[in-house]
């Protein structure tokens, strides 16, 4: 039953032009990695490779690619259907609303992880060929990205049920809150998904960042879990009292 919702939502998302755009965006880290490999690193040392990779992943993938892809997928998972009216066919079914929210979250998180994760994997393999702890580093990032896909997905799916302007609200959260404010005010980090992702990827084996001061992994997991439960609860509450806009 839920598999059907997942299947149809996935086909719906894949057919959108925005998804294609995200795929292209995901190629950027891969291209940069190629340029780095072909052009040769300045230092030519294993440490130099490692530094480049961590900088690339932190600045580009964790800060931009992951939240942006998650934003588009998360807000479209319900949003696309609400926009074009097909959500009626989903709502007019004897299916518990929690299952619908979880199905949409599964698609949003899954699609985000596939796009961002494969970009990470390919770029990582290109840069780190020959670095001893290279595989560990990549796995650490992938774990963080997996957790981030779920957390961002849950927040953005909920956001799309709360407001019709979820894309703009989400963009402001990513760019202004996480990008700007959280880098100035350490206290805000507690409420930043990016910080949970960094903290968890640290614990999973990344470490040695240039921009240190990430959230401890324990706190990241605990607060992340609370955020997940809250986001699903808010989304569920909104869906239960969701009124379908009329055509006329």
């Amino acid at each position, binding site marked *: 039953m839920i598999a*059907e919702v997942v299947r149809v939502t996935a086909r719906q998302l894949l057919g959108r032009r925005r998804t294609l755009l995200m795929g292209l965006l995901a190629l950027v880290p891969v291209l940069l990695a190629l340029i780095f490999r072909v052009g040769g690193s300045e230092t030519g040392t294993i440490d130099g490779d490692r530094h480049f990779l961590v900088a690339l992943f932190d600045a580009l993938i964790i800060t931009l690619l992951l939240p942006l892809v998650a934003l588009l997928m998360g807000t479209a998972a319900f949003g696309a259907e609400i926009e074009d009216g*097909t959500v009626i066919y989903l*709502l*007019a079914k004897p299916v518990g609303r929690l299952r619908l929210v979880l199905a949409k979250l599964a698609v949003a998180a899954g699609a985000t992880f596939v796009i961002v994760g494969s970009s990470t994997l390919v770029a990582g393999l290109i840069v780190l060929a020959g670095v001893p702890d290279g595989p560990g580093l990549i796995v650490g990032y992938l774990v963080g990205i997996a957790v981030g896909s779920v957390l961002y997905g849950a927040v953005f799916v909920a956001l799309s049920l709360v407001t019709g302007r979820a894309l703009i609200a989400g963009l402001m959260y990513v760019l202004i809150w996480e990008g700007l404010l959280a880098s100035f005010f350490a206290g805000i980090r507690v409420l930043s998904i990016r910080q949970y992702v960094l903290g968890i990827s640290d614990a999973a084996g990344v470490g040695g960042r240039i921009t240190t001061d990430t959230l401890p992994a324990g706190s990241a997991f605990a607060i992340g879990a609370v955020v997940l439960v809250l986001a699903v609860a808010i989304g569920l509450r909104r869906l239960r009292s969701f009124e379908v806009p009329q055509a006329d």
Partner: protein
Amino acid sequence: MSDTVTPVAPPALEPSPANPLAPIEVQNVSRWYGNVVAVNDISFSLGAGVTGLLGPNGAGKSTLLHLMSGFLQPSAGRVFVGGFPAWGRPEMYRQVGLVPEREAVYSFLTGFEFARFNARLQGLPDPDGAATRAMAEVGLTDAQHRPIGTYSKGMRQRAKVAGALVHDPLVLLLDEPFNGMDPRQRLSMMELLRRMAADGRTILFSSHILEEVERLAQQVLVVVAGRLAASGDFRAIRKLMTDRPHEFTVRSSDDRRLATALIGHPAVFGVELASGALVVRSSDFAAFAAAIAGVARSTGVSLFELLPTDESLESVFSYLVAR
């Protein structure tokens, strides 16, 4: 619903052990948006058969259907469909099939996949079989493996119906189901709905076109400006509509002479000389239409223009409300 015409809201049926809930029960339901009242204290109950929900555009038909579909929360009153409260109880949808007015469908799915999607979400044991049957029921077997995006408007409408009846629901709610269909598709859709009603289902469809309702529905609910203007047997309401006084504007070579002659005709009960035209009120549309040319000829007056002034559906409805 009784067979007699009941102007304005009929009394609400209270559910009780002796009178269990009808398939559709609407009890004193109102819905407002801020200061705008879209549905105003409407009550009725419907059983098996085809019922037409008739009213001009913007009268509140869609709001009423949305309330019955569980897509809107009533501001006041209660709605039960298939024995369940329509709002906040997804279990209700086991009993209900919906055909929304909006064009939107999953255009990337084939007709068959769309029917199967509905069957699977209904939790049917054999979704493929149910989808195949539903596609055959609406006559789309040949096109069932084409994406809905390639369907004509009428085919899309039928695909929506297939999705709505795939789980064999007790109640079928259709919002303007004949929009965009050609006459042949319209006929076959009517035939399908009649067949389903004969199987004991409760079918409610909305329309702003009198003729559609006339051809299909035994019962009718007339909604005007958010209120239930009339409900009951269609023929009785139709008679009310045709028996009402009709008004015509006539321009001729000599309005005054024509007026004198017309007032003597039994079908005419009022004549008024307006600026440059004659306003004639008749109690019998057909008789007046047949007589006017003869009267003009015998008095030697040339007719320039003859216009029925109030034939719009809206004026028919407002007449019904005013009664």
